[in-house]
C-alpha cells in the first residue's frame, strides 16, 4: 500500500451562470483520514467532489494531492478512486472485467489484472461472483463491486458520492461499518459526500457541514453534534429544541442567566464559551436526550405532552411549550409517568444548552 497522502483544497470556487454553487473553500484532508461533506441537496458538496475528481474545473483556486497540483489535470491523470451514487458499473462487462478496468487502462497484463482483481474481490467478499453480469447482482453486491473497482489501482484518494444512497436501511447500516473498516484497513485518504447525517457521523473522522455553497462547520462528529455553531447545523445533524432568550446576568465565569423569550418565561442557567454580554438576545439549542422532564415548578419552563411514540430503542415525547410555535422533543430510554393533565416541567443542565451563533 502506498503511504497515505493529504489532499488540499485552496480557495476553490465555482459558479454556474448566476448561481454561486461553491464559495471559495479551503480545506485540508489529512492522509488516511475520511472527511464527510454533509449537507442538503444543492449545498455544493457534489460540486466540490466533482472539482476534486476533475469533472468540473473550479473558477478559482487549486486542488493539490500530496504535493502535486492536479487542478489542470484531466480525471484520468489524477490517480483517484471513486464510488458513484448509482455505482455506475459497466453493464456490458462482467464483475471481473469491471474490477480490472482501471488496471487495463494502465496497460497491465491480463494475468496480473485477473490476479489483482481477485484480491480486490476477496477484500469485498465476492470472489465467487467474478464471471457474473452486473444485473445479476443485488444492490449491496453492486456497491461492493464498485468499491473494489475504485480501489484496485491503489489510488491516492478515494471519493465516495452518496455511496449507500440506493440501499435499503438495514443494508445501509451494515455497509457503513464495512466501508469504514476497509477504508481504515487500507488507510486511504477519503472524501465522503452524503446528505445522510447518520452516514456522515458513523463513517468519517471529520465532518464538514455545508449549506448554500459554504462550509458552515468542520469538526469531529461528536464535537459537531455537541457544539453546533448555528441553527442550521443543530437541526441538520440530529434534532434540536431551539428557544430564544435574553442574557440577564453573568453568574460566574462562562455562566449566565438567560430569560426565555415570550410566555415561556422563567430564567435558565447557561454555560458557554461564547462571549456574551447582558442584554444580548440569543438562541439556545437543547438536544432531545439532554432535555429533562420533571414536575411543573413555578418560574420554570412548562410544556404539555402531546404524544408519546415508541421508536424501538427509545421513546419520543412530543411537547407543546406555551409560547413556542414549534413542538419540542424529548427522547428517553424509559417510559415516564405523565401527570393526568399532561403538564410537565422542562429542565436541562447548564452545559447542555448550546448557545448558537445566529441571533433571533
Amino acid at each position, binding site marked *: 500500500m502506498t503511504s497515505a497522502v493529504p489532499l488540499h483544497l485552496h480557495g476553490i470556487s465555482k459558479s454556474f451562470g448566476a448561481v454561486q454553487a461553491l464559495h471559495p473553500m479551503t480545506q485540508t484532508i489529512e492522509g488516511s483520514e475520511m472527511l464527510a461533506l454533509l449537507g442538503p441537496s444543492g449545498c455544493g458538496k457534489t460540486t466540490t467532489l466533482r472539482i476534486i475528481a476533475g469533472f468540473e474545473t473550479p473558477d478559482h483556486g487549486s486542488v493539490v494531492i500530496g504535493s502535486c497540483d492536479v487542478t489542470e489535470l484531466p480525471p*484520468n491523470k489524477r490517480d483517484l478512486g471513486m464510488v458513484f451514487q448509482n455505482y455506475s458499473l*459497466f453493464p456490458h462487462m462482467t464483475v471481473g472485467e469491471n474490477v480490472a478496468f482501471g488496471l487495463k487502462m494502465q496497460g497491465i497484463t491480463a494475468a496480473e489484472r485477473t490476479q489483482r482483481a481477485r484480491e480486490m474481490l476477496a477484500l469485498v467478499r465476492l470472489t465467487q461472483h467474478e464471471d457474473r453480469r452486473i444485473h445479476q447482482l443485488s444492490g449491496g453486491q453492486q456497491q461492493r463491486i464498485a468499491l473494489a473497482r475504485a480501489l484496485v489501482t491503489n489510488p491516492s484518494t478515494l471519493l465516495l458520492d452518496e455511496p449507500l444512497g440506493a440501499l435499503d436501511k438495514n443494508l445501509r447500516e451494515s455497509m457503513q461499518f464495512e466501508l469504514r473498516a476497509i477504508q481504515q484497513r487500507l488507510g486511504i485518504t477519503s472524501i465522503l459526500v452524503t446528505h445522510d447525517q447518520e452516514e456522515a457521523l458513523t463513517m468519517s473522522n471529520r465532518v464538514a457541514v455545508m449549506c448554500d455553497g459554504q462550509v458552515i462547520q468542520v469538526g469531529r462528529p461528536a464535537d459537531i453534534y455537541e457544539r453546533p455553531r448555528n441553527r442550521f447545523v443543530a437541526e441538520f445533524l440530529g434534532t434540536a429544541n431551539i428557544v430564544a432568550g435574553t442574557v440577564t446576568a453573568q453568574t460566574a465565569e462562562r455562566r449566565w442567566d438567560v430569560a426565555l423569550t415570550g410566555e415561556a418565561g422563567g430564567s435558565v442557567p447557561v454555560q458557554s464559551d461564547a462571549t456574551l454580554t447582558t442584554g444580548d438576545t440569543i438562541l439556545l439549542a437543547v438536544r432531545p436526550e439532554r432535555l429533562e422532564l420533571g414536575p411543573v415548578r413555578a418560574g420554570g419552563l412548562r410544556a404539555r405532552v402531546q404524544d408519546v411514540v415508541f421508536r424501538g430503542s427509545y421513546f419520543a415525547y412530543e411537547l407543546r411549550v406555551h409560547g413556542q410555535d414549534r413542538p419540542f422533543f424529548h427522547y428517553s430510554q424509559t417510559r415516564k409517568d405523565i401527570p393526568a393533565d399532561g403538564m410537565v416541567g422542562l429542565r436541562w443542565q447548564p452545559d447542555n444548552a448550546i448557545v448558537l451563533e445566529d441571533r433571533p
Partner: protein
Amino acid sequence: MTVPAVPVRRRKRVRYGVIALGIYVLLFLGFIAAPIVSVVLVSFSTASFIAFPIPGFTLRWYWRIIEYRPFIDALIVSGEVAVLSTVFGALLGIPAALALARSRAMAAAIVSNFLLAPVTVPAIVLGLALLYFLSSLSFGISFTALLIAHTVAGIPYIVRTVLSVYRSIPPDLEEAAAILGASRWQTLVHTTLPLVRPGVFAGGLFAVLTSLDNLPLSFFFGSATTNTLPVVMLSYMENQFDPSIAAISTVQMVIAIVILLIADRVYGIEKLTS
C-alpha cells in the same frame, strides 16, 4: 387433507366491444399480410401469368432470376450501396450524435434537427437535386453518386437512434471510466461505443432496409452498372408481368429477414425495437 369448499364462481362479464375490436385487429393484420403472402405464393406458381388458385408449384421463377443477369447484378449493387452507405452514415453520424446528445445548448438542438432533416425531404426531390448537382461536378450517374445519395438519406436513421440511446446512458459511466484512468479515446472505445452499439445497430438496420427499398432515390442514378434492385424490378414490370417479380421480391424479403435474424442473434430484438 380436506377438500376446500368450491367458491361461488361469478360469471365474468363478457365484453363484446373488446372482442369485436380484437376481431377487427385480426382482420387488419390479415390485410397487412395478404399481399405479401400472395406474392410469396405466386412466386411458386407454374402459371406464367397471375392466376388463382395457382395451378401447381415450381421453382422455375427462381431459376429465371439466376438466368436474368440484371436481377443478380442489381441485387449486388443494392447490397453494396446499402452496406457502404450505412457504414459511411455511421462514421459520419455517430460522432456527431455523441457530441450533440447531452448538450442543452440551443445550437445542439438546431444541429440535431438539421441532421434529421434529410428524412423529411421527399426522396424524389433529393434524388433530382443531387443528380443535377453531381452531374455539374461531372460524376452524375455513377456508383459514387448513388452512394452519396444513399448516405445522405441514411444519416438521419443512425443519428436518431444513437441520440436517443446515448441520452439514456448515464454520464456517470464515462466519468467512472475516466477516473479509473481511461483517456478520452479509451473511454470512447471501451465504454461509450459498446454502450451505444444497440442504437448503432437499430439505426443501421433501418438505414440498410430503407436503402434497399429506396426506388425514388435510386432511379435517378440508373445505368447498367448502377441499377439497384427496385429500379430493375420496376423496368422489368413495365415490360413483363410474370411471377419472376414475385420470386425476386421473395428473395429480397428473405435476405432482409436473414439480416434481421443475425441482428437479433447478436443483440436481441427487444433491444433493437426499444
